[in-house]
Each structure stands twice: as C-alpha cells, then as structure tokens.
C-alpha cells in the first residue's frame, strides 16, 4: 500500500484541520466506553464487552491486553486497529528496548512508541489513521504507576483518571467527583464499576465487563518458583467470578 502511494491521504483543509483525524475521533466516540483510574498503589483499566448476539462466545475475545508484564492497554473504537497496535507494541517493546537493554520499557517510553506509530499513519503514503483511542496503564520503578491516553492523532496525555468512547463526557464528570489522591486499588476498581454502570446499556456481569489491573507483583503468575530477584508480572485480568463478587458488593 504505502509503496504504491507516495502521497498522504491525510491533508489539511483550508481551515487548518486534518479532517481524516477528526473522522477518526468520530469512530472512537461511537465505540463502547472504556476507562482508566490511577490509584496510589495501582492502575485499573475497565471496558464493556458489548456483544451483538448472545451466540457470541464472549470469553474468547480479550479487549484489555498486556504489552509487557507491567503494562496493559484498553481501547475505544475499532477492534481490529487495536489488535494491530497491540501486536506492534508487544513486538517493539522487545526489538526496540528489551533486546538492547535487557529490561522492559518504562510506561512513558512504550506510550511514545505507540503514539509515534499512530502519528505515522496520519502522515505516511496510502494509509488512514487508526480508529482507536488507547488507555495505557503501567508501572516502572522510576515513575511508579501511570495512566496515559493516546489519540488517533498521535497525541498522548498522562491522566489520573479518564474515560474514552461513547459515554466518556459523563463518565469523566463522574470520575472528577470521585477521584482522590489517596485512592487505593480496591477503591479504584469499585469506582470503575460504578462509572461503567452509568454507560452500560445491557446486563452488567463478569462476562459483559472486562477489568485489567496493574498492581502489586503477582509472583504466583510467573510460572516457576524458587528463582530470586525475579518479580512477577504486575498486569492481571480479573476473572469473571472476581468481577461478579465486586458487582454484588456495589
């Protein structure tokens, strides 16, 4: 595609706008709500798993994906575009970082990399912008827990708590009232579920809602025991049962 087209399909309008990127934002805002909340001891990512039919096997699709053991990502917008970005981020975290420094990239570096990929799709020949906004939550030793949003334009912002997609404006107002500096992870999960409840149309249970958590290192998820100085991954998905338990407590 890109080699046959030497010109960009995203060009300026007389008013100075890049209309293709505006349209990409429309694709995002038509997508299902996703949100992220940064707590003092972790980050929560949450989204609704909207199925068009009851015959769909919901468990086979994962909307919240991990990129490195300590970084996870969720989206609003076009699922296929998200899938491609996840694959690129996972690969690049190894080729452009781990295979050079033998450690996983810090969250901000990973975010900048994904943002660059999304920007390139607004300026390269023959391609269209990605129709997703991403929420990236992660942990690294120097910066602690962080939450970033990446837009189709390639802009990225750090957030304390935010929402993207269809019900994002009302969700953000909701979060603004409830977010505090000393929120703990469990409180953040509670608030995430409350916020999602406002925008979810159908039934809300462990199979229609996905929650990802970046929290304390889970050594039991390593897959082996007895090796010193190897912390477990911080990214973890809550099982449908764990989500149902918390929904019952709402």
């Amino acid at each position, binding site marked *: 595609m890109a080699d046959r087209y030497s010109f960009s399909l995203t060009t300026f309008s007389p008013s100075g706008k890049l209309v293709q990127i505006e349209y990409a934002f429309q694709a995002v805002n038509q997508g299902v709500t996703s949100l992220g909340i940064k707590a003092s001891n972790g980050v929560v990512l949450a989204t609704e798993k909207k199925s068009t039919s009851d015959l769909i096997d919901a468990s086979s699709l994962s909307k919240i994906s991990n990129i490195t053991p300590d970084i996870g990502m969720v989206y609003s917008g076009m699922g296929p575009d998200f899938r491609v970005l996840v694959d690129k981020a996972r690969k690049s975290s190894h080729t452009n970082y781990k295979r050079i*420094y033998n450690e996983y990239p810090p969250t901000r570096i990973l975010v900048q990399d994904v943002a660059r990929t999304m920007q390139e799709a607004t300026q390269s020949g023959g391609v269209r912008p990605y129709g997703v906004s991403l929420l990236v939550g992660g942990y690294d030793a120097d910066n602690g827990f962080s939450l970033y949003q990446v837009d189709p334009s390639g802009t990225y912002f750090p957030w304390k708590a935010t929402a993207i997609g269809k019900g994002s404006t009302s969700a953000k107002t909701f979060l603004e009232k409830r977010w505090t500096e000393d929120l703990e992870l469990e409180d953040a999960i509670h608030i995430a579920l409350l916020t999602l409840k406002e925008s979810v149309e159908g039934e809300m249970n462990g199979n229609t809602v996905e929650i990802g958590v970046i929290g304390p290192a889970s050594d039991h998820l390593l897959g082996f025991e007895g090796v010193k100085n190897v912390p477990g991954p911080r990214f973890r998905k809550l099982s449908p049962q764990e989500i149902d338990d918390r929904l019952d407590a709402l």
Partner: protein
Amino acid sequence: MSDPSSINGGSVVAMAGKDCVAIGCDMRLGMQALTISNDFPKIFQFNNAFLGLTGLATDVITLSDVFRYKVNLYNLREERKIEPETFANLVSSTLYEKRFGPYFVGPIVAGINSKSGKPYICGFDLIGCINFAKDFVVGGTSSPQLFGMCESLWEPDLEPDDLFETLSQALLNAQDRDALSGWGAIVYVITKDKVVKRLLKTRQD
C-alpha cells in the same frame, strides 16, 4: 601485522569492594614495539557507569563515541541517568550487532547502581558475551598477568582505600610484565557519593 587486539596494547582491570568499585587502566598507545603516546586513557564515564576499553585503538575511540551518543539519547528520551547494569546490556547488544565484523575490543564495565547502592562489575568478549563477576574483571594485552595478580591479591569486602591499593598493585605489577602495556596508570575509586581519580606514578618504560 596480525592480531588486532595486540597491535596498540593496553590493559584495564576492575574490582568490587564493600559498597565501592574501582577501575584502572594503563596509559600506553603503541604501534607494536613503538610507543606513540603515554597519554591514552582507556576509561570513559557515562552517567554512573564506567567503561574500560582495551584492544584496537581505533575501535576504542569509535566505541567511546558511539556509547556517548547512545547514552546522551537515552538521557534525553528516558529523562534519567543510565544504570551500570543497563549500560552493560547496551554494550553487549552494540557489540553483538557487529557479530560477523566485530570491534576488536575487550570492554569492562564498573559502577554503583544509584537506586540500590549495589556495586556492579562485568567484562565482555569482542562480540558482547557478558561475563558477570562478583570479584574482579580484567582486559587487555596483560590480562593473563592481571588474572594472576587479582586472583592472589583480591579479597572480599575491601574498603575504598584498601581497594585502591589492591587494584593499583594488581595493575602495576601486571603491566610491568607486559611489553605492550604501561607508560602510566589511572585508577578510579567509586563510592555512592564520590569518585576519586588518581594518576599513578609508574615506570616509564
């Protein structure tokens, strides 16, 4: 005109002590038997990692520039200093990139991790295999002599001043038994809060 690692000559050695590390090098630059310079240091500092580079002098110069460039960009991108362990892995991947046309060098890295305070030393072969050591690492044309000196003189948990004496004696006596090393020596003693660089008074032959 054959073995690139022994045309110019030179030696480096690093040792770990109690919450400190020391790294030293000779000052000779030669063309086989002819000594051209007695002011060619082989230790370079990148944030809190010290790199000792022996071998073909052109590669020593080029690599010190390459790492200066890579570490500067790391500082700008990551907005933080590079740690010795991370720098060592950067050295390893840089060298392996040239697996089938290598740099003819024998690097060693020494430093103290600014977060954990742990001393770190390691050596590499010319294609980047990391040799992690808890006691000492050696490199250069007098490395057989350095191995012998370090193995006998080194003991664990040396304080900075004692580590300095130990490393200096290992370096001096090894380079005096090597025709291609010598003509001066520099020793860095690194602790958490300061670095002391000493120029040793040595035999000038």
